[in-house]
């Protein structure tokens, strides 16, 4: 098994005393890793450090064997991501937004842009300015931008935010499809237990800035009736809920 994402002893402390502490994590190729934790647990902080948006106080992140701090370009070459919120340039159209990103890669042409727009279901809004988009459409465009370069690792922070039920189902389907057909590895954060249970096959729980446990969904469901039970028990071990 090839380790795609390796987080080693990452610590980041904010001035208010919160932060993440000594996070160690491996994600294997083909995993759909669910990063579960309540709001404010430090999920976004961890993901920002993984993608180089933020620097850690200590520890390092390796993606495909390249350190994010020392070899940023190599590490990020096969990564697509949405961190915190799906943003785009609102004064540009959906197509223009994707066209900008496509320039960073060698093998992304206009056909690929149409393809990801089709996959995320917003092809018909291709020429429209993003400022007229709804939150769900912006989220879809964010996902389109994340998978544009056929990345081998996709990091998504709360990808289903702002989507309606239909959108959630579609995106979940898309994640499963990419994982199966293109062997894409996913690292998905969410605060919704149900959502993680439906999408992911390995699950890590982040609580109060610490990674409580990592296990496969199979193992968990062998021992617990549901993911929720597992979550309650794991967090309970750590003192409070």
């Amino acid at each position, binding site marked *: 098994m090839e380790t795609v994402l390796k987080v080693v002893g990452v610590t980041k402390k904010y001035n208010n005393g919160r932060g993440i502490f000594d996070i160690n994590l491996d994600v294997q190729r083909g995993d759909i890793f669910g990063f579960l934790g309540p709001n404010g647990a430090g999920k976004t902080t961890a993901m920002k450090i993984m993608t*180089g948006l933020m620097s850690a106080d200590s520890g390092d992140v390796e993606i495909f064997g390249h350190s994010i701090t020392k070899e940023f370009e190599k590490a990020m070459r096969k*990564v697509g991501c949405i961190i*915190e919120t799906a*943003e785009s*340039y609102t004064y*540009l159209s959906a197509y223009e937004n994707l066209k*900008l990103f496509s320039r*960073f890669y060698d093998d992304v042409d206009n056909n690929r842009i149409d393809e990801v727009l089709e996959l995320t279901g917003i092809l018909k809004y291709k020429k429209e300015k993003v400022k007229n988009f709804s939150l769900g459409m912006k989220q879809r465009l964010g996902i389109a931008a994340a998978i544009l370069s056929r990345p081998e690792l996709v990091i998504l922070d709360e990808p289903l935010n702002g989507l309606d039920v239909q959108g959630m189902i579609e995106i979940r389907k898309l994640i499963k499809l990419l994982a199966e057909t293109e062997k894409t590895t996913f690292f998905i954060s969410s605060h919704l237990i149900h959502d993680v249970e439906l999408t992911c096959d390995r699950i890590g729980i982040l609580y109060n800035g610490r990674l409580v446990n990592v296990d496969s969904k199979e193992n968990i469901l062998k021992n617990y009736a549901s993911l929720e039970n597992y979550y309650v028990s794991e967090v309970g071990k750590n003192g409070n809920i």
Partner: protein
Amino acid sequence: MGTFKAAVINEIIKIYKKKKVIVAVIISLFAIVMGQLMVTVVNTGFGLRAVSGTQFPILVLSLFSRTILPFFTTLVVIDVFSGEFSHNTMKITMTRPITRIKLFTAKVSAVAFFVLVNLIIVMLLSMLAGILFNSDSITEMGVFRVLLAYIVTLIPVVAFALIIVFLANIFKSGTTVFFISVIIFIAFNAITIAFPRYSSLFITSMFDWHSLWNVNTFQISKILREFFIILGCAIMFYTAGYYLFDKRDL
């Protein structure tokens, strides 16, 4: 280098897609037309020919380089840095496979490109106006001088832009950056007027260093000195700006 080029193109497209560029061109055009009208009125009214065909673009440059150009350059820098930070769009480029030094340099290059294009547009428009209204005095040498004067103006304006870049990486709000820039601009100019002897210490006094190039015999030592002053200032603020840009947690 591939990703750097991509980033430069992207940054230029983003600047171009904002309406500011169009506004800058329209205001420049308006200023040129007004200027030419004024010159024509003065010339015919007083029976003078104070501004010849090739003098007009220089006249326009000496005003433009000290007003409209730094103003719009400041706005563009604020857009490119503060604007993206505050609209949270900086991260969508930062998570692409491009290092921050390349991204930073690409943004600065795009600003420089904007300044250059703005200068060229104003040069062509003012030359056209100059030719249309005073057809009698266009010479190859004159055109060459105009070209040289406009091109060299790029250098101090970009150095000034780097100061704004530095500010835009310190302060979060674009409005703050804008007002501090305006204050710096006014203060520099005021000090330059009050203490002309120390004008070399303030980059804004270099905006009209094109006059050093519009001479019959170049004063190489003076030109080199001013160039090194501008270069030193540019290196300082480029480095400081990059340091902040690189260190920044999003």
